[in-house]
């Protein structure tokens, strides 16, 4: 299947190995992967902060770019950005010209774990990683895309990985986009609940489906000198025992 990958602006600028790993996993399961060099952002920062005019400008451009692609699906290693694209019809609800286009793009866009399991019906991507790890449910993946079992299924099939459930795995990490800098004290107070749970789990790595949560969680773990590392699901799935 031909896939156009939307890596997201965060991955592009701050965490490229998530993009690299996603491409590797998609190719391993037989997809042809294209990357449109014109891609930037899904428009979520403006949408969530209440700047709809700016959000529409960026979303229109996203729609235009991917309309030109002959790839059957757009896949993104982010539940949050995928959920944003799924919200495009809401953003263009009053615009008869853009609404059908928004709907078409929303229907073609999938988060990585959801694409592997729901579309390709692949539960084991042949990954191996040795160690004890846990999973943090990123809010938008969990509650907007209903991704609960999908990432867990993929993780359980990683050879050598010992998966433990995180206490309150579905609790927010406190990131929330601009919330994290508008209310940094509250954001970190919420985050500390997550950090405590991660430390109690006694794991080597905490895995999640969104770079944003991992930047938040990782930023605190590193500030506190924790040994636990943060890892994106795509990075985990790209690991092979033969290197």
């Amino acid at each position, binding site marked *: 299947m031909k896939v156009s990958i939307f*890596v997201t*602006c965060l*991955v*592009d*600028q*701050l*965490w*490229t190995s998530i*993009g*690299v790993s996603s491409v590797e996993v998609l190719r391993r399961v037989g997809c042809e992967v294209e*990357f449109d*060099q*014109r891609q*930037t952002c899904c428009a979520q*920062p*403006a*949408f*969530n*902060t*209440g*700047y*709809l005019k*700016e959000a529409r*400008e*960026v979303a229109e*451009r996203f729609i235009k770019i991917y309309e030109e692609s002959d790839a059957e699906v757009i896949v993104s290693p982010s539940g949050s950005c995928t959920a944003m694209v799924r919200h495009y019809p*809401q953003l263009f609800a009053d615009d008869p010209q853009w609404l059908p286009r928004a709907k078409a793009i929303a229907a073609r866009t999938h988060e990585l774990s959801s694409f592997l399991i729901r579309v390709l019906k692949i539960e084991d991507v042949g990954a191996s990683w040795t160690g004890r790890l846990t999973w943090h449910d990123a*809010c*938008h993946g*969990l*509650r*907007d895309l209903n991704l609960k079992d999908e990432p867990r299924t993929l993780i359980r099939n990683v050879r050598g990985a010992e998966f433990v459930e995180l206490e309150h795995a*579905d*609790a*927010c990490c*406190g990131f*929330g*986009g*601009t*919330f*994290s*800098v*508008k*209310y*940094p*004290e*509250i*954001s*970190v*107070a*919420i*985050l500390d*609940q997550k950090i405590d749970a991660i430390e109690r789990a006694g794991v080597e790595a905490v895995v999640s489906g969104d770079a944003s949560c991992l*930047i*938040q969680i*990782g*930023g*605190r773990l*590193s*500030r506190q000198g924790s040994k636990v590392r943060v890892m994106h699901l795509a990075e985990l799935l790209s690991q092979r025992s033969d290197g």
Partner: protein
Amino acid sequence: MNHLSSETFRENAKAALADTQLRGALKNATSLFGERRKQAAASLPNWEALRSQARAIKDEALSQLDRYLEEFVRNAESRGAKIHWARDSAEANAIICRLASDYNARVIVKSKSMTTEETHLNQALEAAGMQVVETDLGEYIIQLADEPPSHIIAPAIHKTRGQIAELFTAELGMPPTDDIGQLTGTARTTLRNRFATADLGISGVNFAIAETGTIVIIENEGNIRLTTSLPRVHIAVMGIEKVIPRFADLDVFLKLLPRSGTGQQLTTYQSFITGTKRNAADEGPDEVHILLLDNGRSRMLAHPVTRQSLACIRCGACLNACPVYQQVGGHAYGSVYPGPIGAVITPQLMGIQKTSQLPYASSLCGACREVCPVKIDIPRLLLHLRAEISPRKGSLAERLAFKFWAKVMTSPALYRMSAVAGRVVQRFVPISRAWTSGRDLRPIESKSFHELWTNE
């Protein structure tokens, strides 16, 4: 505490975060309520269907609110209740003060009512020289402490047992103890005396049934039953959104509300009041008044997106589930209705001028929507309010930043340039102190994914 305002949510929140007693009390209470709610919901096989059914009933009532209100009023009046309409808080308080004075009421007992908190009725009655006694234990505690409620169903949720003991010693003169039995016993004895002498009882309303003209009020302490039956006059205060079409509709709400609020299968008391008593010899008040309050609700009703805010049945589940509320508690919101639903309702009731920080007091995690028994899409409503507030009230710097951001994000050339600039800038300037005060900043990659792809 009384003077907290929602204009200063950020400062209020910071103060709350520094209060270890408050945070301990909040953590215990919200996790206990949350856990009980989860178990109670799981005890019913058809929880999701019930939620949809409840929402459908609310939508039906709201879509023909005028018709159902008229039906309710007609039926309540035919059974002897007297109806009053109030456009806003001032009108509501004036009507109630006038009634109280007509009946020559000196002591007024009140059961917990968020609607009368919304109108600040107690202050109005006290200003008119009347003694008002809150009879719900939590509400009684905060009345003694001269504080507003910090939770929709558990008004004193922010207080520890020790703090309540100190308060009772100071205000009621009881010997120092933190024995729960003695504390509640003292409150009970004090309140029983007030019930016996009260001239007027004021309550809220959970549901108003159009078909029969009945008001339904649920509780655990028995104080509502006493408030509405002992004094010779009862005034019930309700927002106009409380009406439901049929008696049979109650079934689903009486399943959802206690389970969502406290995790109970059923509250200890359900009072059904249909007008006045039939025979003079029967128990109950001689007169029943029902006050229907608008106070901004018809404005919410008029808008297709915000209308769903009126479906709220005030269970408080979204507060317990909210990561922000769990950390800062209700007072930080500086408004009568705290938490996620408060951040939605308050700006709509009071206007955005003084409440504009509230819709941003959320990480948009969606936990509130997940637990809401009537499926209110609170994150969507928060986004709707943000879109009304940001372009008008956002700082100039923020508005310009988003304009610039949109330019960058719609131009591949600018996007590449700004990425390179970012790499340079981060070497010399701490990017954002708001971020780095508590967290390390992940450095910008030396090569973007765009560059890696080109090189491949």
